[in-house]
């Protein structure tokens, strides 16, 4: 234990840089990025399927789907390996043998993983904006020059950026949650399974909230309240609804969701540090 050392942001930065480089070289990052890009480009061939919405909205929604799906896999796949378990031939031991606080280790790994996910989100969002731009009629592009928030069939380019940023915040929160799970998991398989389960629960948390407010009987309400309070609500970060920022959705609401995500991230990160400090390695 080196917990008598003062907390150093410099060491956290070095660890974050290392984690970032390792994660970028990892197959998970390359494959997830490749799949997301392929899916977004592939959706151009599915334009005939947009019955309910404009083509722009269909493409934007599809792109958001790719971002959410592959971003979640990338986040869990990357974060789960850092805190021991049976992965990365116990690399954690060699790092912790150096003069380093465990809290610095967790924070460094968190920042490194989040940076990788931020790069992924930026790449996919930029590609989505580019694709939307090429599929936009010239008249709409002219209108957008005058007012960037003008909707392209219910979608705004600012909205695509806001939606991408909110997903990045959500993945930061997911990273902290996965680190908490990995901090006590004995195997990577366990950490992966539990993280995936938690992801599903967080996406369906709003149903627990409904049960809490309007459930039948105290057992349902108590269960709903516990799930509703323990797990963050991932549906707040949306699938494709933030694409309408500036058209029908306010930027203030997006800021409120980002604050919610960042506050929860801090809580999960503190818990991950606490749990990892107690761990026998």
């Amino acid at each position, binding site marked *: 234990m080196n917990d008598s050392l003062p907390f150093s942001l410099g060491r956290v930065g070095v660890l974050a840089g290392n984690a970032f480089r390792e994660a970028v070289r990892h197959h998970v990052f390359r494959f997830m990025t490749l799949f997301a890009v392929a899916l977004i480009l592939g959706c151009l061939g599915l334009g005939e*399927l947009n019955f309910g919405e404009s083509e722009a909205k269909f493409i934007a929604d599809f792109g958001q789907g790719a971002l959410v799906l592959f971003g979640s896999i990338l986040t869990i796949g990357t974060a789960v390996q850092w805190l021991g378990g049976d992965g990365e031939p116990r690399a954690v031991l060699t790092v912790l043998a150096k003069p380093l606080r465990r809290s610095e280790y967790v924070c460094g790994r968190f920042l490194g993983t989040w940076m990788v996910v931020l790069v992924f989100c930026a790449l996919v969002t930029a590609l989505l904006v580019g694709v939307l731009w090429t599929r936009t009629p010239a008249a709409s592009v002219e209108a957008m020059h005058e007012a960037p928030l003008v909707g392209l069939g219910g979608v705004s380019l600012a909205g695509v950026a806001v939606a991408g940023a909110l997903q990045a915040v959500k993945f930061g929160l997911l990273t902290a949650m996965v680190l908490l799970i990995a901090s006590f998991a004995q195997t990577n398989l366990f950490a992966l399974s539990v993280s995936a389960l938690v992801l599903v629960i967080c996406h369906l948390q709003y149903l627990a909230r409904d049960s809490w407010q309007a459930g039948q009987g105290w057992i349902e309400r108590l269960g709903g309240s516990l799930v*509703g*309070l323990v797990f963050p609500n991932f549906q707040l970060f949306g699938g494709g609804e933030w694409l309408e920022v500036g058209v029908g959705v306010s930027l203030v609401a997006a800021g409120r969701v980002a604050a919610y995500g960042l506050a929860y991230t801090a*809580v999960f990160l503190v818990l991950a540090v606490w749990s990892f400090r107690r761990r026998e390695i």
Partner: protein
Amino acid sequence: MPHDPTVTLLLVLWSRMVRPAAVVGITLVAAGWALRPLEVAAWKAQEGWWPKEGALGVAGAIGQGGAFAQLGGFRSLAADLLWLQANACWERRDLAGTKAALVLVEAVDPRPMVFWLNGARMIGYDMAVWRIEAQGGEEAVPAAVRRRLEVEQALAAAAHLERAFVHHPDHPLLHIEIANLQLQRLGDLSAAAEHYRRAAVQPEAPFYAARIYAELLRRLGREREAHDWLVALHPTLPPGNPYAMADTVLARIREMEARLDLPPSSRYAPGRD
């Protein structure tokens, strides 16, 4: 002091499992409680985006595809594929299949208005015909039974549209569709007029909603009310927009004034307050 293995085991369990789990649980409950106002405010703004518990149960029936759409964000694609399925069932006049597919479309992606409106038309108009045909056709089915089937389907379509208000509060096209069902299938002029009125007062209402509301008031014998409505409407109509039909509205006002035999001082004069 004797070394009791049970006590030791309990102490180890407490220290390694129960205490950490309790600390994490209590911290998360406290954090959830503290962040609840933020969550409630953010959720209020977007509650209509997501299907309700019951609807998700139905979505679950389509298996991983539905869950994938809910969790992964591919809602548009999943809903479009389900809409194709609904139309395939509609072509086969498969009543149960069409109904089930429409419920699934509604559960997966309640945002597109076209799904709600066309779904309501399938339920309200087409399914009534299918049910009559299933009982032997118009020749074989007594008029009272035909009427009952038409009313049942119209009410089901209206209920389908009412569910859409959760996601599209007071959308004028939903009110107009319900009004059309009231008018053409249920024969309830009053209810139809009320829905046309509610459609007409929405900011994005088509111009014809206000004109039809006035016409229904006239048919209900409330011609003076219709006149006042059109008089209030006329100055708001953009003169250059052919859909606004300002001249037609003015002509109807004149016809009503003639029928009501209004004195010249009570007659509408455009441009006068």
